[in-house]
């Protein structure tokens, strides 16, 4: 179970039970966020380091907020201005982290598998905050959480994921999480942005955005990531917007109560039309709020706490209920 794991590296590695346990824990923390003083002492005495080797605003803020809401000490480390840009290896970075006595490491890195390297080399718990084009597990979890909070379930829902699947870690984590929990996933995007043998994920590849959206409960729109792309992949944003942009007209094919999601930051008017981004179906800001709760849950569980017992769960006034014993102040070794 997740409570015995040292690291969260990807949703591919998790069982459906583990995913559900994280989502259940996140719900408890979601309630904390609505309190007048949204802070609990769960991680007091622990230090979390946010290592961002790649630019990020919302994920870094979300993690930092989650850590602070749980009373952890936090340190941040960004590529620009840090010694990484001076050629320090990941190995030395890891050693320094170890020497500083850090308990939890949140890492975003441009290279797929970099968090796995740290996880192998550190006693500290490692949370993948996005590695290359591999996974972004907390984004996947917060998307699942947002869907489940609205619909009460994941199983049986039809989810369309639209955009650049090849280069999207959000897509991979969503696909793993959704399929493990029993949703049916359809993807659509330019043929140059569909990785080889993608259907082996257990997803259906639609020939058009319209086909993917047809009857969907959820439409998750990926950011078109120009910074990741070679010019050979697609001709122009204008063409992309016309062929793959999700507009309110296209959205009419979905279920009447369809949820529109986007991991942000949005390219308004390109992959998502302005009125869709701000329209009544959009849950994009909810995703952001939920992101903090989900990350609190992940930090809490990896720090060595057992998931709060569902049967014993009650609206807590101080902090999430623990099943037994004092919370360990040290992550699993």
């Amino acid at each position, binding site marked *: 179970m997740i409570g015995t794991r040292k690291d969260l590296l990807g949703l*591919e590695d998790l069982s459906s039970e583990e995913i559900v346990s994280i989502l259940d824990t996140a719900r408890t923390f979601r309630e904390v966020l609505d309190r007048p003083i949204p802070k609990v002492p769960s991680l007091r005495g622990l230090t979390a380091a946010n290592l961002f080797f790649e630019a990020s605003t919302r994920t870094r803020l979300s993690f930092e907020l989650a850590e602070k809401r749980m009373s952890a000490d936090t340190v941040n480390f960004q590529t620009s201005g840090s010694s990484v840009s001076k050629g320090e*290896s*990941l*190995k030395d970075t890891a050693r320094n982290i170890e020497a500083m006595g850090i308990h939890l490491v949140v890492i975003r*890195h*441009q*290279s*797929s*598998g*970099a968090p*796995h*390297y740290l996880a192998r080399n550190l006693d500290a718990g490692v949370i993948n905050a996005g*590695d*290359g*084009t*591999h*996974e972004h597990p907390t984004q996947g979890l917060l998307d699942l959480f947002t869907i489940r909070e609205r619909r009460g379930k994941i199983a049986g829902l039809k989810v369309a994921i639209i955009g650049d699947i090849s280069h999207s*870690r959000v897509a*991979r984590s969503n696909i793993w999480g959704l399929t493990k929990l029993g949703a049916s996933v359809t993807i659509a995007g330019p043929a140059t942005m569909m*990785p*080889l*043998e*993608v259907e*082996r*994920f257990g997803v259906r590849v639609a020939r058009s955005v319209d086909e993917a959206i047809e009857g969907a409960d959820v439409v998750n729109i990926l950011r078109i990531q120009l910074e990741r792309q*070679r010019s050979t992949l697609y001709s122009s944003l204008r063409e992309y917007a016309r062929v793959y942009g999700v507009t309110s007209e296209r959205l009419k094919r979905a279920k009447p109560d369809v949820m529109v999601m986007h991991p942000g930051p949005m390219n308004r008017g390109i992959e998502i039309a302005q009125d869709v981004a701000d329209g009544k179906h959009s849950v994009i800001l909810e995703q952001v709020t939920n992101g903090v709760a989900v990350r609190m849950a992940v930090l809490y569980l990896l720090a060595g706490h057992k998931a709060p017992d569902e049967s014993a769960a009650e609206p807590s006034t101080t902090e999430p209920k623990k099943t037994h014993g004092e919370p360990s102040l040290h992550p699993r070794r």
Partner: protein
Amino acid sequence: MANPLCIRGGRVLDPSRGIDRVQDLWIANSRIAGLGEDAPADVRSHPQAEVIPVQGAVICPGLVDIHVHLREPGQEEKETIETGTRAAARGGFTAVACMPNTTPPLDDRPRIEWVIRRAREAGFARVHPIAAVTRGQMGETLTEIEDLIDAGAVGVSDDGKPVRNAEIMRRALELTRGLGVPVIQHAEDPDLKGDGVMHEGWTSTRLGMKGIPDAAESVVVARDMLLAELTGGHVHVAHVSAARSAEIIRRAKGRGIRVTAETAPHYLLLTDEAVEGFDPRTKMNPPLRSAKDKDALLEAVVDGTIDCLATDHAPHTDIEKDSDFDSAPFGIVGLETALGIYLKALVEPKHLSLPELILRLTVNPLRVLGLPGGTLEAGAPADLTVFDPARRWIVRASEFESMGRNTPFEGWELPGAVLLTMLDGRVTYRAEAVPTTAR
């Protein structure tokens, strides 16, 4: 006469002459004196003759690796000619052909001569340098190919990179055509490779890694077959990794085109799934490919489409390889594990007989380079390898003679422990348990 030596009681395998029988092998004056009764009487009755008993082991001509990187000059932190050839000897090799992608590259006569001299001084293996096709391996201007071959180079290649320009490839084939040496192509289309780091397929899709399609190799192989046909020159395709490349080579051979090919051990035993844990020791170029490719390569080795078995020994430092996957350089070491892996991949599953394997590790690579040898015939230099095909051993990179520890086979149990390697009748490697006795 110096003291003659008798390698006693081994199974003598000399595929060049169809010999496979248990017999004593006699060595005198750095050369093979003969097998059993065929050795001269004065050798056999010499009072000071020494004996190395090797009952149960195989004695074969010294193994030849047509594709290694010795890194010297310029990258001595990775390997030197001495450490690389020590590694060769420990792996049972008595001759290696080294690639020119050193710093600076082997693109002029003094550097070719220097490598040959350094290897002679070290004395652990014959080193046959391969010269660059283009100056600085920049792909723009031909090197002085005829002069470099005259200086002792045994072929030309821009290995590490492809000869991208078809016109240059054509002219290199024309210039080498009459010299009896091949143009060795690192077949790769740089545009299709892009910034890929592993085979493009389901595993790269799942891991979110940038892929290198098999076509990146095969399109260049196909082009080169046409250029070999146009010129009558000899193309040798290095480290074939893809089923489609093998198929193209098979057809070209069928049409009488002068093409030969090699593969490397890892392509016959591992697939792209080995990259799963993001371990940079599974990163090489060309990359580990699909199970289908692996099976097709085994078939191509068996039917002779792939002529010889190389290593593409590519040492790197721990500092370089101990990192995230993308940052690590391509390449793994191979000299000290190749024989065991080839036995495991080809002989144990009975794809090849032992003599058929030895042929692909001795005579065949030599013939690709137009070199003599690969025989235990009386009078030939006493370059030979003794190994015990039944004796199993554990791969421990920390025990390598190579400075490179970058192997994906760490901890594997392999058959075929090398017991003894001799070059010109001198021991270049001997396993601890092998004694010498008086006769």
